[in-house]
């Protein structure tokens, strides 16, 4: 055994964990760690421009690969700047490790310069956290933290380290194995429950699958496909479940939820057996809970037992990893087909296709741009998005067909996620094209990371869907608050000049005819590119399940919104340009 400083132990531990990159930002209390970094070149340090960006980059890195993403910040403001990113990773169960420095042990609790009670702050937004008070505890803590972050229901773990713990020396002892008596995730399904679920599925006439993020996090796309094919069950995806099945598959019926398709939401509402896989029964996916298909029997498979019966009662809850439970279930069920049921959904799809399609005509719309980028980039590219209308359109029209292809903030809905997440994904996948579909609002929250992309030669392609509005908020103000636009229109800088200021390529697109050329130019350029798409200002995302409505109340036009909210329809169509 060798004695080394806490800083060396931290870096040595990261190496043992296979961490090859840390998104970090220095400051006083982590200087002892930075001081030792040059001796550990195996761990690449990427200097970001804001800790939130570092946190989202770690998140994007983890989602693109399934590997642990790591971000580092100094005490006080550095640490508090991570909070949004940590919460984001928590809500979407992303395996991440957040490291912060803190003031020296003798100063803890004395409100010294840049002290923040960051472990107190992060407690409710992490899977677990630690304040490490002795250098001899560091190695074990890192091993334990990584184990917790990457197993069971994945999530962020935070380690806070006082400055002098980086300096003090201790023996480096790497644990051969980690056992935690309060942490034993179940991965195999209880056989009796599996049997009950199988019987229920066999007896179903109109079964449906809700496939969530768990399928992607658990690497269970193949298992999902086999199960669905054997039982002939159609598959709906939650936003984060997109990519768990190729949309071209005969059983794939696309996205459900607030901006899911009419046919998906009605299929969900009319099924007799729902098979929910690795999803947490979120209100954005399910609408009003009480009226989410109240007659269906529900088989709910999730690795986190607390998700069962939290929002929706399950008839047969199964605790376990979808990767293990699905083969058990596939084995237990009979081969089946549901031709009539599929035909019923197909008919709905034909009849209601128009409420979820790219508008005809020559207007430059986000929907159109999304389809063109998806087609040019192909399924091997990675796509990140911000939050808002462009996110929903990207989810609807970008043909997400493989796991880890779409990286988006689902649970927290964090505007500003798009650019740093794309940066992280590009670090993780240097050989893939990474596109980020940005809102003009969200882009302006975190675009400082362009400087990091320049430094680190990360050729991210940024597409700003510049509608001059906080579009999703504007849509709600138009449809739900009766056209009362308050604080949603925004003036924008000249994004092309902004690109030039950073020394990267900037392209302006004002007309549909320029779209393909701009995309091709971006692909041909080997550095970061920013495209300012001046898209239609007042398009709306359809269909829609207004907040508080049920999936069966999916609406496809402003008049239907008015009817649902019990208002008389408007006499005159109000705004030109809006997709009414």
């Amino acid at each position, binding site marked *: 055994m060798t004695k080394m400083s806490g800083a060396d132990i931290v870096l040595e531990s990261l190496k043992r964990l296979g961490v090859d990159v840390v998104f970090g930002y220095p400051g006083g209390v982590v200087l002892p760690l930075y001081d030792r970094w040059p001796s550990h070149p195996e761990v690449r340090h990427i200097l970001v421009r804001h800790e939130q960006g570092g946190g989202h980059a770690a998140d994007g890195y983890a989602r693109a690969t399934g590997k642990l993403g790591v971000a580092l910040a100094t005490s006080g403001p550095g640490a508090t700047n991570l909070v949004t990113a940590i919460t984001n990773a928590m809500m979407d169960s992303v395996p991440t490790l957040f490291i912060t420095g803190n003031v020296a042990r003798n100063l803890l609790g004395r409100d010294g310069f840049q002290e923040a009670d960051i472990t*107190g702050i992060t407690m409710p937004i992490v899977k677990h956290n630690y304040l490490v008070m002795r250098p001899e505890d560091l190695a074990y803590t890192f091993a334990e933290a990584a184990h917790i972050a990457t197993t069971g229901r994945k999530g962020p773990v935070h380690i806070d380290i006082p400055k002098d713990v980086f300096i003090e020396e201790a023996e480096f002892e790497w644990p051969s194995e980690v056992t935690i008596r*309060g942490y034993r995730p*179940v991965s195999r399904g209880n056989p009796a429950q599996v049997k009950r679920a199988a019987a229920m599925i066999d007896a179903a006439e109109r079964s449906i699958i809700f496939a969530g993020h768990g399928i992607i996090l658990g690497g269970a796309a193949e298992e999902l496909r086999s199960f669905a094919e054997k039982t002939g069950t159609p598959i709906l995806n939650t936003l984060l479940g997109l990519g768990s099945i190729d949309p071209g598959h005969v059983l794939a019926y696309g996205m459900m939820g607030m901006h899911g398709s009419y046919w998906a939401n009605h299929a969900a509402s009319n099924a007799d057996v729902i098979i929910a896989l690795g999803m947490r029964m979120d209100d954005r996916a399910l609408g009003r809970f009480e009226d989410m298909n109240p*007659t269906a029997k529900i088989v709910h498979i999730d690795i986190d*037992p607390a998700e069962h*019966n939290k929002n929706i009662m399950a008839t047969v809850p199964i605790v376990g990893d979808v990767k293990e439970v699905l083969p058990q279930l596939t084995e237990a069920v009979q081969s089946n087909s549901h031709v009539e049921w599929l035909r019923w959904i197909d008919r709905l799809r034909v009849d209601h296709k128009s409420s979820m399609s790219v508008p005809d005509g020559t207007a430059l719309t986000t929907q159109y741009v999304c389809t063109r980028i998806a087609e040019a980039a192909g399924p091997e590219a990675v796509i990140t998005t911000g939050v808002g209308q462009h996110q929903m359109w990207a989810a609807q029209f970008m043909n997400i067909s493989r796991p880890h292809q779409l990286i988006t903030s689902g649970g927290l809905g964090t505007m500003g996620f798009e650019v740093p997440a794309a940066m992280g994904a590009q670090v993780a996948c240097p050989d893939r094209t990474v596109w980020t579909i940005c809102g003009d609002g969200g882009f302006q929250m975190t675009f400082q990371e362009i400087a990091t992309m320049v430094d680190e030669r990360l050729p991210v392609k940024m597409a700003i869907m510049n509608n001059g509005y906080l579009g999703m908020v504007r849509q709600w103000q138009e449809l739900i608050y009766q056209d009362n636009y308050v604080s949603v229109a925004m003036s924008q800088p000249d994004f092309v000049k902004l690109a030039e200021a950073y020394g990267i390529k900037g392209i302006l697109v004002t007309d549909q005819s320029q779209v393909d050329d701009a995309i091709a130019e971006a692909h041909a350029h080997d550095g970061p590119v920013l495209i300012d798409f001046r898209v239609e200002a007042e398009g709306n995302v359809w269909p829609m399940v207004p907040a508080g409505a049920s999936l069966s109340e999916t609406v496809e036009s402003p008049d239907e919104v008015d009817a649902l909210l019990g208002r008389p329809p408007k006499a005159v169509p109000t705004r030109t340009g809006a997709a009414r």
Partner: protein
Amino acid sequence: MKHTVVALVEDRPGVLNRVASLFRRRGFNIDSLAVGTTEQRGISRMTIVLDGADGIVEQVEKQLYKLIDVVKVSDLTKEEAVIRELALIKVRCSPEQRREILDLVDIFRAQAVDVSPTSLMLQITAATETLDAFIENLRPYGIREMVRTGRIAVTRGARATAVHEREAAPAERFHEQAGRRPEEDALPYVSK
């Protein structure tokens, strides 16, 4: 309904904070909380009394299990358990009233632990309801100060709530069909 939930937790800094934070965040109401050491080193025992429907308590249990520092959780409400609470009560008492109050003390098997010309301090260890009744009987004299520990509980018989014991799979406790309405035929699609 009142539930008595026992959580065995790692005896580490911050664990009380984690548990309290969880209850606050999820809107679960704690009636009382008692924390103490156990027969096992490094393990503390929290006895939490909370009010809520069975479904809420099931969520509480499962959310508690998600905390890495929580090793075991059990709901003793439906078990045969010895449940006790301790109270210290300082009651106004003139020398003439002393006999009367000491009779109450006898009836409730409480103890007098301190005396002054104008007051008497009483100690009682009992089940919550007994304790409540004792306090009600003392109220007319005037209670000057009082403290209760909150409930602690241990199941009767040889079976123990301890970390070394194998627990039943949580999945087995989940209920069937609860809260879901029976099937109706008024669906837009019926295959037969």
